[in-house]
Structures are given as structure tokens and as C-alpha cells.
């Protein structure tokens, strides 16, 4: 690879407009796997829509979704080996569920209830999932980038054959952490793939204002990483590009993989994108929705149909409904949990404060309930 011209010109694509597969780039996924990954995208989308509704109804406090970015999130996560690790940004609940987190646990996190794996301490969509080799969501932008590099570095030092991928938005490439992470990855040749979800926006700030680079991938050159760009609305292309990137990373060539996609929603449920985006522009992006694109491919191969679509959505709806019911029935976290995990053992001052809290009048109304 040489020179930015290469990066600018070369975007990995697999699915052609007529739903045929570009022969050079076909990742060779089995029909069953293709269907399963498509179903996972649909499930993620349905969940996204339901969560927005729950937020609007005041039943959960917040949601930050991946509408439009499903191919990027699921295609990258699907390309990992079981032993690889993911370091999330905050839009990757599709990857979380693909890795095996039960829907119920995710829903409990959305409600911050007593069954929430992170004990109702964080905002919705701020999950941790170590059993699934999945990091912990933090709001401060970019912090996960250096951490993923350090994790992969440590594994390399111990001779363990794993890779780590880390997600962040194109906005995060302006953060100190992106610079440091890319630099350390380059210097120590860590088995890391830095996945930049370029959805065009950092809340209301467009990508053009974020960086004067023509592409985000070309920043790789400055750090000695391998640049790659992929059509992030093309599930098969994302899968293929991530497999290739992982192979390079395992061979000591860390990759900056820019996934070109769109955020087909506001930044989060707190945002109103009509304040800064035109209707036409948003409609044009909806036409590139990764879900119908993959569906057309499956239908052409006789693997999917409207009937299957309806049946699958009905199944997901039913599962989500049950999960919501259970999450709403679950009690709030007990007061005790507020003082746990600050340290491994509770020191004197937290024991004292816990005692004091027991005598304080309990507050009415809990976040997320």
C-alpha cells in the first residue's frame, strides 16, 4: 500500500446494485450464515425502534442506537474469532448481542434495574460484558482506543494469539486518545484493528468540520498503520474487510479501518437532527440502508421472503415484549450496591456513609423507572 491516492480510490465493496456479488471480494459466507447475520441486523433494528418508543413513553431514560450502522457493527463483530476481543464505543449493542449477551441482560441495562449486570450505575447503553470478551462502555470519547491497543499489546507480550478491535466514531479521531492509540499501535505493532464508524456526524458537527483529511483512513499513514476503507452499508464487504484487517493485525500490521456509513437517526434520543439536517439529505441516506440491501441479495438467492421477514419480526417483537415486561417488573438496585465496587473492599469511610444512607429518607422515583 502506498500513498493516500490508494486509500481514496479503494473502497471495499461486495454487494453490487443489482444484488450480485463482486467476485474478487466475496467472503464466501455460507447461506445459513448470511441469513443469520441478516436476521441479526433486523433484530437490532427492531430493538432500536422499540427502545426509541420506550424512551418517548418515559419508560427508559435514554437510548443511543445504531440505525443505519447495523452492517458496520455486525459485519465487524461477525468477522472475529471466538478468542478475539471487542472494545465498544456506544452504538454496538448489535455486536454485544451477537457475542452472546442475552437480550434480557441488555434490556435490564436499559432499565438500570436490580438485574442490570452493571447494577444500574450507568446510563442506558453503557454496558460491560467481560464474559463475552467485550469491554465496558464509557461516555468520554476515545478512551477505549488506547485501552484496546494496550490489551492487544499485553496479549502479544504473553504470546497469546488474539486480536482486539476497537470502535469509535469519526468524531473521535479528533481526540487525544485516537492519536495516542494509533501511535502506540504502530510503534508496538499490536494486533489491533481500529474501526472508525464514519457515519458523517458527531452529534451536529459534520465530518468535513472534524478533519481536513480527505478520508479518515489516510490518517493511518502518519502512524505506520495500514489504511482500509469499506462500504459500511454492505454487510458482506464489512465482514470481508474486517477478516482481511484482522489477518494483517495478527501479522503485526495494525489497521485503521474506516467504515463509510450513515446515522439514520438523531445522535441519540436526546437529539433532534431536523435542527441541523435537511430532509432530502436524510432521505438520500435512507436509500442506502444496509438492511434492504442485504435482503435483496438474500431474496435473489431464494434465501429470504416477505413471509419470512414478517415471521421473523413477529418473533423478535414477542421476545422484546417479554424482555421489557421482565425488566419493568424487576426491582431497582438496592442502596447497598451504590457503595460496592468503588474499591474491592469497602473502607471505613464508605462503611460509615452506607450506614448514614440507611438512615436518610429514601428518594422518590428512580432514573429509568
Amino acid at each position, binding site marked *: 500500500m502506498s500513498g493516500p491516492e490508494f486509500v481514496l480510490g479503494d473502497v471495499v465493496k461486495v454487494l453490487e446494485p443489482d444484488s450480485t456479488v463482486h467476485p474478487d471480494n466475496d467472503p464466501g459466507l455460507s447461506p445459513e450464515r448470511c441469513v443469520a447475520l441478516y436476521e441479526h441486523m433486523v433484530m437490532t433494528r427492531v430493538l432500536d425502534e422499540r427502545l426509541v418508543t420506550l424512551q418517548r413513553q418515559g419508560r427508559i*431514560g*435514554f437510548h443511543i442506537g445504531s440505525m443505519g450502522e447495523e452492517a458496520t457493527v455486525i459485519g465487524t463483530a461477525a468477522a472475529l474469532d471466538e478468542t478475539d476481543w471487542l472494545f465498544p464505543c456506544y452504538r454496538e449493542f448489535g455486536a454485544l448481542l451477537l457475542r452472546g449477551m442475552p437480550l434480557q441482560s441488555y434490556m435490564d441495562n436499559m432499565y*438500570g*434495574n436490580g438485574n*442490570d449486570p452493571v447494577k*444500574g*450505575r*450507568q*446510563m442506558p447503553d*453503557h454496558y460491560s460484558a467481560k464474559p463475552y470478551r467485550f469491554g465496558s462502555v*464509557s*461516555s*468520554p*470519547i476515545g478512551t477505549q482506543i488506547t485501552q484496546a491497543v494496550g490489551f492487544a499489546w499485553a496479549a502479544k507480550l504473553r504470546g497469546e494469539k488474539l486480536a482486539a478491535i476497537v470502535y469509535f466514531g469519526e*468524531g*473521535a479521531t*479528533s*481526540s*487525544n*486518545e485516537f492519536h495516542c492509540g494509533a501511535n502506540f499501535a504502530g510503534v508496538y505493532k499490536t494486533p489491533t484493528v481500529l474501526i472508525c464508524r464514519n457515519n458523517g456526524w*458527531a*452529534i*451536529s*458537527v459534520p465530518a468535513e*468540520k*472534524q*478533519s481536513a483529511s480527505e478520508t479518515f483512513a489516510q490518517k493511518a499513514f502518519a502512524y505506520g498503520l495500514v489504511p482500509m476503507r469499506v462500504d459500511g452499508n454492505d454487510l458482506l464487504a464489512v465482514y470481508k474487510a474486517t477478516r482481511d484487517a484482522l489477518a494483517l493485525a495478527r501479522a503485526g500490521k495494525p489497521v485503521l479501518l474506516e467504515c463509510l456509513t450513515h446515522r439514520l437517526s438523531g445522535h441519540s434520543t*436526546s*437529539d433532534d437532527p431536523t*435542527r*441541523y439536517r435537511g430532509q432530502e439529505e436524510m432521505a438520500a441516506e435512507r436509500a442506502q440502508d444496509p438492511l434492504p440491501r442485504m435482503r435483496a441479495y438474500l431474496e435473489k438467492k431464494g434465501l429470504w421472503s416477505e413471509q419470512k421477514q414478517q415471521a421473523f419480526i413477529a418473533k423478535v417483537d414477542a421476545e422484546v415484549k417479554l424482555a421489557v415486561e421482565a425488566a419493568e417488573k424487576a426491582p*431497582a*438496585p438496592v*442502596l447497598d*450496591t*451504590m*457503595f460496592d465496587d*468503588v474499591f474491592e473492599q469497602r473502607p471505613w*469511610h*464508605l462503611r460509615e*456513609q452506607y450506614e448514614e*444512607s440507611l*438512615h*436518610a*429518607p*429514601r*428518594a*422518590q*422515583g*428512580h*432514573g*429509568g*423507572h
Partner: protein
Amino acid sequence: MTQMNMVKAINDALRVAMRQDSRVVVLGEDVGKVGGVFRVTEGLINEFGAERVFDTPLSEGGIIGTAVGMALYGLVPVPEIQFADFIFPAFDQIVSEVAKFRYRSGGEYTSKMVIRTPVGGGIRGGHYHSQSPEAYFIHTPGLKIVCPSNPYDAKGLFLASLRDPDPVLFFEPKRIYRAARSDVPEGEDYTVPLSVAKVVRPGNHVTVIAWGAMLYEAIEASNKAAEQGIDCEVIDLRTLWPVDIDTIVNSVKKTGRVVVVHEAPKSCGFGAELVSLINEKAFDYLEAPPTRVTGWDTPFPYTLENDYLPLAGRILPAIARVAKY
């Protein structure tokens, strides 16, 4: 006069300042077209243009570092940090640079700016959209720290902050951004002086010190205490640093009893400094140990945030205890 909330009042203050002084520029994440995620900078880009209001790249270090450079050049930047929780990538620039420029250059340079940032909990923001990090900055010599509790003061304190020769961190209590309304002279220029606290409720038995959103909890608790025959004097600090020590000491000399309220964790919170100052300056007048009602020494929780915050229900028993001591 117009009734406004704090968001509008600070917006109006920015307009007044920017109309008067072309050196004043606003920069930060989402402050332009969308007017800030809390809309404090709404419409500024329309009135003053993209040459004075900048949607910056996502880098707090970049925002404050370039603001320092602008200040050295002679502009008066008003950078916004989207949430006080995200000020830490700029910590180095603020602590090592903004705070020390005047001193380390022998008074040659100053990095005059007003850093605005929403602070505090009560909006279901969890760890990273709720914190009150004032103590780190009060501990840093060279920074002035302001935290208004109502729209009128917010505007006047902002304009005073801008005209003060030193860099100011202007913490905006987001829980009361829209909840508190007051009469604010729209489009007019006025200041509320820095380092002058306000006695918002005179009383004789217990001094209650608070600021920002917790002031309202302190007042509510004091009103309830009055029903038990305890007459509280409530002080709104308004400027945290340099604090108005005279108002505090005069009150404590009268009451001999004091309760300090803040959202930030207890240990090494600003309350610790206030209690020490009171011990140093009014020890002979004290009738009871000065007491703190604060956030617990844990990260800021999501679901249990109202059990974390020092709301009126927790302040009242502390007042009663101190009064009876």
C-alpha cells in the same frame, strides 16, 4: 423586564458581550448551528457569524489549547465544554497553562477566557453527565470559579466573569437550566460582582451554605426546619473561588452552627475547605461541629441518583442535628 430561564439568560449575556466587544468569540462542540446541546449558544452563529462562533473538532484539549492561543493574541474566547464531565481531556491545558500563564510569565501574558460548562446531576445522566468537578479547579491556583443559582445572577455573573482580568470557570447547574426563572433585563448590560455571596434567607440559628442547584434543596430544608422552630440563614456562594469569606464568617459568628451542602463527593470536596476556613476564622464562635451534606464518595450513579444527591430530605436532619448539638 422579561421572565427567562438560565439558558436564555446566559444566551442573552453572550449576545450583550459579543455585541459590545468584537474580541469575544465562542468555540466548542455543537455550539454553532444547533446552538449547543442545551441551547445556551442558540442563534449566536446567526447573529455573529461563523467567524465568531465555531463548531470545533471533538477535542477538549484542542478547544482550550487554541483558546489559550487566542487569548495570548488578544481575543477573549468563551470556550464551551459540552459537559463538565468531559473537561478532563483539557485538564492539562487548564491546570498547567490557563491557570499559570500570568504567574509563570511574570505577568507578561494572561490567558483570559471564560470556560462555560454544564455541571451537576439530576438529569439521569449517570457517571459521565452528572459530575461536579469544582474542587480540582479550586485547588489549582490561578482560576476563578463561578456557579450561579438563578437566571438573573447567571447573566450578571457571566458578564462580570468576562470583564474580570483572570480566567474564569463558569459552571452552569444544568438541573436548573430551565427550572428556575427570574426577571432578567433582556439585552441590557449589568454585572453581578464576583466573590460576593448572597444571603438568600436571613436567619439566626444555623448557617446553611450552598450554591447552584443544591441551593434550592438547602432552602427547602430550611423552610421545613422553620416548622420545627429552627431559623436558618441560607447563603448562596455564587462565586466559589475566591470565596466571599466575610459573608460566611459574619453569619457563623451570629449562628455558631453551620451546614455545607454540595453535590460533589465529600472527601476533599469544596465543603472540606469551607469547614477548615470556618474553623480557622470563627472557631471561638462555634457551638457545634461544622457539618457537610454531600454526594457520597462513590462515582455518580444512574438509577439511584436521587439517593446520591444531598436533597432536602438529607439536609433537614443535618440541620436539626447541628441545631440541637
